[in-house]
């Protein structure tokens, strides 16, 4: 039976400016490109990755400008467009003052009380 994995992403905005992306969303996208059956649950501060209109542009160090700042909402959207389910923990979003309309289309809301049910759908849970 093919392996099915849920990547839970919790740590957020950790070196995203240096990396120009979130490395776990990146690796999930890369694994899906290699045929992996892997979905994502955004929890904790990572729920903010789903917020529309994030703008990390404009960094400049001396004369050196950052030319490709991270576009995390786009990266979430790309995963959804590639067929991944991307869940967002509604309790954590609400705790951070987020409304459903703040979030990109295609995110699947899930409440904390339903994480146990969600985990049952996957062979392995990788918490990043």
């Amino acid at each position: 039976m093919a392996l099915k994995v849920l990547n839970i992403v919790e740590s957020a905005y950790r070196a995203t400016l240096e990396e120009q992306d979130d490395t776990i969303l990146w690796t999930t996208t890369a694994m899906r490109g290699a045929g992996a059956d892997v979905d994502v649950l955004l929890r904790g501060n990572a729920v903010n990755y789903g917020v529309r209109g994030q703008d990390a542009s404009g960094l400049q160090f001396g004369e050196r400008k950052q030319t490709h700042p991270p576009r995390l909402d786009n990266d979430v959207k790309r995963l959804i467009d590639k067929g991944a389910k991307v869940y967002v923990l509604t309790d954590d979003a609400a705790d951070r003052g987020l409304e459903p309309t703040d979030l990109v289309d295609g995110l699947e809301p899930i409440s904390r009380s339903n994480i146990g049910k969600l985990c049952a759908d996957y062979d392995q849970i990788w918490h990043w």
Partner: protein
Amino acid sequence: MAKYLLIESRDPFDSNDVANFYEMASGLIREGNEVTLFLVQNGVLPARRSGASPPLTSLTRRGAEVLADDFSLRERGITEDRLAEGIQPSALDIVVDHLANGSKVIWH
């Protein structure tokens, strides 16, 4: 029903989200799963009887096995007689046992 091993390396004194991880353990029990919560590193600090330990004891009463890494306990000078009700010391080997036996193992 599946077997879950949840590994908590963080402590509630430093990290708010520890409570959410305990709650995840509770939710998995409610769904009928067999759940072990393994405390390691600073995750063992609330295992010492204190104001922070009742949530762990409560988990054991709901059916979770709560274990604390014996090395992390010793490293922090936490002796077995100071452990909160329901928490047992354990060797780290138990994590490899669960991995080998196909439990769903989740690190936090």
